[in-house]
């Protein structure tokens, strides 16, 4: 189609889109490039090298990083598992529970962790744990992560469930399947891409959290983001750039995975 007469086309929008992507990616790509810098100075380029990656795994700070990585990963796995389970049950209750009093209140409650500013959640959680005398540490971090992961798991799961016709479950129940079997053998196989995608998003959100973790981690325990933040406060060092690059690529890999799983779930199933 001739672009001048294409009513969808606006001059300059492509340029702005490229600018937008440039702004989003330039800082990340530059840090990635400098993480391969052989020089100990972060300003001058001293040739390509993997020494800072070696430093992350074997250098003087490697023990700290490994412990922080272990904390981050174990908390993220547990928080995402619990949050996804809670969110799956919640999504079925909301989407397949018919019309009921308190439905919008329930939805508001589930969305609450997204709506409350992170710093406010952090303060409130710290005050809560300190009032009940709960010792700050891995468990307090885990509890807080479960809370804010729930809405992130809930969104893809409920979106998936909304796209599934209730006739499948009705057919199963007509054939005398109880509710558990209906869920296990009918609903679950259709909605699993949503559940998995919700799990992965919750996992990333937990892995990335800094503000809330920083408030309630207590002394002596670090996750990757709090360890990176502590380091950066004393200046950006090349090993931190290497560590950041690794974490960044890990997140991108997970999002890509979640994206393809979600896409697979969208493929039309036979009755559509």
């Amino acid at each position: 189609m001739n672009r001048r007469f294409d009513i969808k086309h606006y001059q300059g929008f492509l340029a702005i889109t490229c600018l937008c992507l440039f702004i989003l990616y330039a800082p990340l790509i530059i840090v990635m490039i400098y993480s391969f810098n052989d020089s100990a100075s972060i300003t001058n380029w001293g040739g390509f090298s993997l020494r800072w990656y070696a430093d992350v795994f074997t250098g003087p700070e490697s023990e700290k990083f490994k412990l922080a990585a272990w904390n981050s990963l174990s908390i993220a796995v547990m928080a995402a598992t619990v949050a996804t389970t809670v969110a799956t049950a919640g999504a079925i209750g909301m989407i397949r529970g018919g019309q009921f009093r308190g439905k919008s209140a329930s939805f508001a409650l589930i969305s609450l962790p997204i709506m409350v500013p992170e710093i406010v959640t952090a303060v409130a959680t710290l005050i809560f744990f300190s009032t009940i005398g709960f010792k700050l540490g891995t468990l307090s971090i885990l509890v807080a992560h479960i809370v804010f992961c729930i809405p992130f798991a809930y969104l893809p799961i409920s979106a998936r469930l909304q796209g599934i016709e209730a006739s499948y479950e009705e057919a199963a129940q007509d054939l005398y399947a109880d509710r558990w079997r209906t869920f296990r053998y009918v609903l679950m196989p259709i909605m699993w891409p949503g559940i998995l995608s919700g799990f992965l998003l919750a996992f990333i959100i937990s892995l990335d959290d800094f503000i809330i973790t920083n408030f309630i981690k207590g002394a002596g325990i670090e996750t990757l983001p709090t360890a990176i933040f502590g380091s950066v406060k004393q200046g950006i060092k090349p090993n931190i750039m290497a560590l950041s690059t690794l974490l960044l690529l890990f997140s991108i890999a997970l999002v890509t995975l979640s994206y393809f799983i979600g896409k697979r779930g969208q493929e039309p199933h036979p009755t559509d």
Partner: protein
Amino acid sequence: MAAGTGSGRTVSATFSPVRGWLLLPSWLVIGIFLLVPVLLMLVYSFLTKEFRGGVIWEFSLAAYDQFVFDRGLFGDDPPQIEWAYITIFVRSILQALGATVLCLLIGFPTAYFIATRPANTRAIWLFLVTIPYWVNLLIRTVSMKFLIRDNGPLNEALLAIGVIDAPLQLINTNFAVQLGLFYSYLPFMVLPIYASVERYNFALSEAASDLYAPKWTILRSILLPVVKPGIIAGCILVFVPSLGAFLAPDLLGGAKTFMIGSLIEEQFKGNAGNWPFGAAASMILLSMVLVVLLFYARAQSREQT
């Protein structure tokens, strides 16, 4: 989703007898570990401060009073207006508004462009915009700091091509914080606008075009009113987290660029903190956010009726 079900679809109720049990875990977890803590924070904001962090359980309005009045070191001087905290709140609102406007200027054309791509490439463009959202915000902010610091790559590049003679001092300025907020929340603006432009029926634009409406008039008078809910949603998604941001002002700014988030954090770190004051600052921030969200909810329900 089957075509033609539309808004008239019946509500599925296959699990309605057990919905209470299904929703109970969500209610309990979020109720106990978020709703109760927020209410407790409200209580704390009316308590007396303990000097080494924590509180004394005694009712006091001191935390809120401290925002507006300076009563001297011992609290018995005649009250004077205290501008420091008011300035921080005004600065936060201005920074958040600025970030919202910048995000809208770049985000709207981007969202529109992506939504009008053919179906096969649209997903790729969208995916490219989504990825940075999932990358650790801390790492993104650190990257921005690395890029714009005094002898960083941006200044080097500008010096090399001769645009400037001396490095620009960007870090520790309000501009750096503004840039950081804009950069942090840009994807939040693109996604909701994209969603509403994608649903827009271009037959409306074609009809306007057949009646000789100029292209930019079509954009302004036909498309914009239809996609307005998406634009408002995007603005809220940028404004709300910008208002309470901590990382951008902390890493890219300095003492002169303090925002609400940094003020709150300071009250809970170490022994110098003031818990009731921090709780009060959080309550004020939360109230501001709730006002914005209520305004949004009302605008939405008016849109639907």
